[in-house]
């Protein structure tokens, strides 16, 4: 009973706020139906640092920059919403806790679409093809995963699952953050690092002593994520398609991946 009255009160306030700013929206979708965490605002969850997809940038207006950020900001603009960024942690996002806590409307964190994750969160249409790659020291003589004694991965990521399923006999060492695997490689604790090619290319470009020796096309795709907000998801898919059509998507892609 109590929660009902509270919900009603919230609804009433929401209606007032929305009515007050109702004239300004240009999006094709009615913002009343989007079930946003904060009215008029698209709260985008991401997990940094994962350059060039998402990283902190104090000079940027939102405090973050990268492919995912630019794309989701473009979507927010399509929907006539003000974008804002939140970082509740990758596991909270993929596990759905961040959505349950009302920390975000949508997550743009280079999340590979998996059946497992789909049980907790709802994915948009795929917006990015992701391969995985094996990075080793240039002087190690390693040319394929079969030469590896041990490999470093990040906990809970697709590369970890891939290595567990496909690389029998290789010791898999898991790290919480994305820097750990590279530190361990540098420290000689592991022979290689298995990671998404997008970020590993960035590493290899900046360090001559490291090379990418193999890539693995696992048919993986990144998706934006929502939870139990079908109208928002439909609106996001619609604007994604729109951005692809009008060339904005390619523009953003070229901005961050000049060679592809």
């Amino acid at each position, binding site marked *: 009973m109590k929660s009902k009255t509270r919900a009603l009160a919230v609804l009433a306030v929401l209606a007032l706020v929305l009515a007050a700013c109702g004239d300004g929206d240009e999006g094709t979708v009615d913002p009343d139906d989007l079930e946003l965490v904060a009215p008029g605002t698209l709260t985008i969850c991401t997990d940094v640092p994962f350059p060039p997809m998402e990283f902190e940038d104090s000079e940027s207006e939102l405090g973050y920059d990268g492919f995912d950020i630019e794309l989701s900001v473009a979507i927010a603009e399509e929907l006539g919403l003000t974008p804002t960024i939140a970082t509740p942690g990758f596991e909270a996002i993929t596990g759905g806790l961040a959505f349950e806590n009302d920390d975000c409307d949508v997550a743009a964190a280079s999340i590979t679409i998996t059946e497992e994750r789909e049980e907790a969160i709802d994915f948009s249409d795929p917006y990015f093809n992701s391969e995985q790659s094996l990075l080793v020291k240039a002087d190690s003589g390693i040319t394929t995963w079969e030469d590896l004694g041990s490999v*470093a991965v990040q906990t809970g990521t697709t590369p970890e699952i891939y290595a567990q399923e496909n690389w029998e006999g290789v010791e898999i060492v898991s790290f*919480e953050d994305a820097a750990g695997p590279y530190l361990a490689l540098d*420290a*000689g*604790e592991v022979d290689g690092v298995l990671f998404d090619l997008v970020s590993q290319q960035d590493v290899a470009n900046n360090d001559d002593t490291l090379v990418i020796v193999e890539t693995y096309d696992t048919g993986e795709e990144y998706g934006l994520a929502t939870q139990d907000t079908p109208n928002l998801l439909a609106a996001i898919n619609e604007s994604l398609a729109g951005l692809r059509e009008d060339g904005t998507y390619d523009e953003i892609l070229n901005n961050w991946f000049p060679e592809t």
Partner: protein
Amino acid sequence: MYVIALVVVVLAVLIGDWDRIAFNFFNLEVMADMFPEVLTIAARNTLVYTLLSFAIGLVVALALALMKLSSIGPYRAFAIGYIELFRGLPALITLILIGFGIPIAFDFNMPGGRVGAGVLGLSIVAGAYMAETIRAGIEAVPRGQSEAARSLGMSSNRTMFTIVLPQAFRIIIPPLTNEMVLLIKDTSLFFVLGTTPLTKELTKFARDFMVEIRNATPLTVAALVYLAITLPLTWLVRRLEKRAAISR
């Protein structure tokens, strides 16, 4: 005061959504899934890491305490520098510096690999904290004890090790237990150095389990296991203290 406490508890009970809490934090199916690994791997690793770090840390601490009380200036300076440095740094940073910094800088890999590096890192931190405890303990032993020992013709080393230190340790058992309890929880920082399925300790084990099944119950189980380790430990020490008090 009691009224306020009662109101808070009643409100918490009324407002909390107990079905969801039960499902997310006390899910029996999930709990069953965690056994026996939560004990045979996770709790075991936590205990092993703690005991090793505590043992090595204690030796380090004893050496530091004696150095700090030494009449030789450079010893004192070293002990003070060491203690201030490692007491002032977050244990997480020390672990990363030891675990990655040493191998990168000197091309030297710790025996025991990542676990070895983690144990060494925690020992270094624990040593800094316990050194101050031991020093205080030594200073708390009445001066008359060492004066009497010296006047019986004991050397100063023998006085320290057979007369002063045994009494000092009796005094500092409670603070040392405290340090051990802190250490048990600090082993949860080992994750920064990387883990394999067999080297996970309780917290990392529970977190990974939580992510895998998207339910927070593993954290509850880990919390209970931590308590199952620390509560008997503190109880044991309370008994030891009582006995020590009687025999004095």
